[in-house]
């Protein structure tokens, strides 16, 4: 048992994540061809616009459609569909918490691939200053509010169906992910109405920005992802948890160095036990980068299965140095 624990704690997380993410990417982008269907309430960007290949649909797509039902329906029988969809989403989410972002989300994986490409090319990364970080971190909540309110407005007759599923229209996942099944059909501007023009043009602009952003900045998009905001609001009862023991922390900042999301609290906060913040993707790189035994750990249903250890740290460090 302790041998198994050592093996887990000594894991080469980088390699493990690469293969896990690749497998998840293949599953959710191509699984549909093998008739895999995991439903419409997945808590990550398994894009519904991947026509045949997808093995399930990102919850934000049906959510926006459901909320756009006319109010009399929404507040009667259609409300049941909203609630059941949300319940299934919450059940999926609770298992992995934000681990969906760090390990499963195809758009997240794609950004990690772009990062690897940049590293291979030897181009340094960009980061936000503390001030920029503080200002930008709210955007995901604004996007979440809009993606809920705009469809509700449609249902109430305040504006037209042409702005339906507004977030999907501007989400780079719609453009980028279908490319992997050879579908270029989302790369258009829809001139059929002013609303469509604005949203699709915004979408294409954001796609261009996404490619540059994800290339120079690790997990560029995740910082603005409304799914991430929705996750955080539900994260209290989640089973997978990132915990910190501040008394063991030396604040050396190794975890912050590793963090794709530039979360300073992970290194600096020595009082909070539940250290997962709203920007966290639960990629667990911080745990792998921490040299203090037990300072950072990952619990599933309160059972620790991966924690920072000196031995694991040195192993991973040496692997990096000698590469």
């Amino acid at each position, binding site marked *: 048992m302790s041998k198994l624990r050592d093996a887990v704690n000594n894991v080469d997380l980088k390699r493990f994540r690469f293969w896990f993410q690749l497998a998840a990417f293949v599953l959710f982008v191509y699984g549909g061809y093998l008739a895999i269907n995991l439903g419409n309430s997945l808590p990550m960007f398994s894009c519904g616009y991947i026509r*045949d290949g997808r093995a399930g649909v990102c919850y934000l797509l049906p959510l926006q459609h459901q909320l756009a039902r006319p109010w009399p329906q929404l507040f009667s029988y259609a409300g049941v*569909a909203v609630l059941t969809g949300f319940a299934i989403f919450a059940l999926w989410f609770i298992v992995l918490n934000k681990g969906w972002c760090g390990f499963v989300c195809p758009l997240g994986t794609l950004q990690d691939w772009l990062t690897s490409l940049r590293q291979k090319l030897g181009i340094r990364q960009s980061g936000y200053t503390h001030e920029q970080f503080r200002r930008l971190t709210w955007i995901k909540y604004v996007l979440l509010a809009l993606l809920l309110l705009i469809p509700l407005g449609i249902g109430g007759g305040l504006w037209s169906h042409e702005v339906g599923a507004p977030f999907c229209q501007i989400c780079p996942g719609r453009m980028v992910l279908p490319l992997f099944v050879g579908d270029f059909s989302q790369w258009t501007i829809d*001139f059929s109405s002013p609303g469509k023009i604005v949203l699709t043009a915004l979408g294409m602009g954001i796609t*261009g*920005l996404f490619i540059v952003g994800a290339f120079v900045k690790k997990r560029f998009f995740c910082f603005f992802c409304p799914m991430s905001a929705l996750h955080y609001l539900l994260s209290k009862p989640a089973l997978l948890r990132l915990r910190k023991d501040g008394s063991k922390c030396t604040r050396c900042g190794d975890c912050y160095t590793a963090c794709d999301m530039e979360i300073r609290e992970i290194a600096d906060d020595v009082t909070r036990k539940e250290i997962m913040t709203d920007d966290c993707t639960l990629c667990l790189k911080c745990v792998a980068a921490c040299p203090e035994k037990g300072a950072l750990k990952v619990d599933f249903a309160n059972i620790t299965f991966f924690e920072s250890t000196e031995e694991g740290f040195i192993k991973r460090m040496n692997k990096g140095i000698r590469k």
Partner: protein
Amino acid sequence: MRGGGDGVLWLSDQAPRRDGGGRPGGARGGMAGMGGMAGMDDSGMGGAPGRIPNKRLWLRSGSNPLTAGSVPASEPVLLLDAQQQASSIDVEAHGGPYNVTFPMPEPGVYNAYFVRRAVDQETLAVTVAKAEVMRSAGHSKVEGEAQLMVPRTDSRVPVEIVRERKDGEGLFTRINYGDTIRFQVLRDGKPVQNARVSFTSGQGWSNSVQSDEDGRAGFVVIRDYFPEWREFDRRHRETFVVSASFPVDQAGEWQGSPYHSVRYTTTLAGAYYPAIEDYESYAWGLGIAVVALLFSGTAVYLYRRRRVRPYREVSFDE
């Protein structure tokens, strides 16, 4: 050439206008090739739980959908449901405008046939109006959809037009402007050569060809929807009517009246929509993405260059 009030009978899922015509577009139906859940009473995603959608068809006269009015009739409709079960549906408006209603519990293709035989001046006129109605399951795929999409015929129907499917056509697929749609004319299951096949667009434009040795005829769906840009609706629906007629030298007797020849007429209606190319532009999409990409890429590059100069991080309002 404009299709006129020629008395051709066809089944439409659009109620005829009081002044004689069908609603010219905008309305939503479920006729062949229309695709999607539009027009269904709540099929698919988020639909009211447990409700079975119903479909109503009207019998209309005149091959121009703009002007074709309703006609009374009393013959029942032969319905072939998604599982190929045949049933007979009675007319609802006795003596009034002919219409029938049937439930569509399962996703799939429902065929409805109206058959009329009459002898006039020693000629037997056999008229078959056919409708193909599709029910999809929202945006999701239906199991065995390819199987469901295979066109079917029925031996009880003397003559019918079969629309050949587009490549990879599913329950959700639409017929768009610019598509070439092909039909086959069959009598007792055998192709009919040299039948006169006419296609009439929603705005009344029509074209006629002779069917080839396999009974086939093809038409390009023309674009006949030119609204002001602000009124453009990408879900704009137009109805087309295809009719085929041909004589056969055959003598016999029908309900006590002798005849020397038979004239077969059969129709099939469907819907078509603006093509994606009519309102979406790849060039613009790609262009905006590339501009955004270049702009942000350059911005990042310049920002990095500029940041080489130190001590510039603080500035003051003078």
